[in-house]
């Protein structure tokens, strides 16, 4: 009997980031236009598994995702035990560009969610020529913490349990139970302090409010999709981006929350596939 493998293939990439050797886990499925997917804070590439297993996506797109250092199956760099992990804008942007170069991706479409939905705004502003199109999921120019982040990393509270507890309400109440709990499982598996370290970018270093209006969508088309149940990156915050960035296409997704690709993939694909079709058809680039 043939093994029932999914079409997703994962490999480990040796790569230098910030002058230090790293071992990154990269997975991909499909062929055609490269679509580089960025996971949320404190999670990993598994969030994109439904997309990678969907022929409607992989027919025209080579979907690629990597676990950021410290996340999923990517190791932290040697010496990590003596450091506090904190994601900075500079490191995040450089990491994405380095992975693209290492994989030889020529003008991919990039799609990121949450912290990924923030960093794509930095990419749109500073590196638009490197991308065919940019898709932000749950994008906001800034996020205010609404709880004390210190709870995420302390010896007397289980980090995985509290991380899942914090984000559980960001999943839409209509999400299928199995997808909701798989999304939370990813959070439960995060390493100590990693979610908190990512939120340094999300709540502080990645603040792009003062520059976001300078994004020029004529240089690279920008699509922003946000779930109505996301109270972290709110619909209001994304609509505000739409007002500030001329030419950005904004869609508020009904019945979805902060993790559209993993909490309710089928509903999300209803919003994503038309965007991918437009990019594939060259409509977006003609509009530019």
């Amino acid at each position: 009997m043939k093994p029932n493998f999914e079409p997703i293939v994962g490999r480990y990439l040796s790569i230098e980031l910030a002058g230090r050797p790293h071992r990154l886990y990269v997975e991909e499925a499909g062929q055609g236009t490269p679509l580089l997917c960025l996971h949320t804070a404190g999670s990993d590439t598994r969030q994109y598994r439904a997309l990678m297993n969907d022929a409607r996506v992989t027919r025209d797109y080579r979907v690629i995702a990597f676990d950021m250092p410290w996340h999923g199956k990517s190791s932290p760099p040697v010496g990590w035990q003596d450091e506090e992990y904190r994601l900075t804008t500079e490191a995040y942007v450089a990491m994405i560009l380095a992975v693209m170069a290492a994989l030889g991706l020529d003008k991919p479409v990039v799609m990121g969610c949450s912290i990924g939905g923030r960093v794509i705004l930095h990419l749109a502003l500073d590196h638009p020529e490197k991308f065919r199109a940019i898709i932000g999921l749950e994008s906001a120019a800034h996020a205010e913490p609404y709880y004390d982040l210190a709870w995420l990393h302390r010896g007397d509270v289980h980090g995985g349990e509290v991380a899942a507890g914090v984000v559980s309400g960001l999943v839409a109440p209509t999400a299928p139970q199995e997808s909701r709990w798989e999304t939370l499982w990813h959070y439960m598996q995060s390493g100590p302090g990693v979610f908190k370290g990512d939120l340094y970018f999300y709540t502080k270093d990645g603040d792009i409010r003062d520059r976001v209006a300078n994004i020029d969508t004529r240089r690279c088309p920008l699509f922003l999709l946000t779930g109505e149940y996301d109270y972290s990156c709110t619909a209001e915050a994304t609509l505000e981006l739409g007002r500030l960035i001329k030419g950005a296409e904004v869609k508020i997704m009904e019945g979805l929350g902060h993790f559209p690709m993993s909490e309710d993939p089928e509903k999300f694909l209803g919003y994503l596939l038309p965007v991918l079709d437009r990019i594939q058809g060259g409509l977006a680039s003609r509009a530019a």
Partner: protein
Amino acid sequence: MFERLKDRVNGNPALLRRGKTCSTRFLLEMGEESYLVDIREGRIEAVTKGPFNMTSWTFALRAPRDAWTEFFKPIPRPGYQDILGLAKRKLLRIEGNLHPFMAHLLYFKEALASLRPEARA
């Protein structure tokens, strides 16, 4: 509404397991109404309706009646589906010693959500 916590939680083995290391007393306020909830190893021992005279509790969750009413709908409107969502909207105040609350955050969220009419066990 909150009186039903006892049946909903104690009848749910998965919730009892999730709260197994949680023993505490906390205060719930719905507008002017207040309730004390006593938890022992995940099991709701008592839900007592106030008013109270000089009582002690570990932490308190306080929100106006309207906010809880929306929270308890089978499908609440966006922003009202979660107690941290209510807190972000400044509708829910979370006060006191938050350690038991944060250490068992999923347990408390699931326990309160279990009061929804069509809540899935």
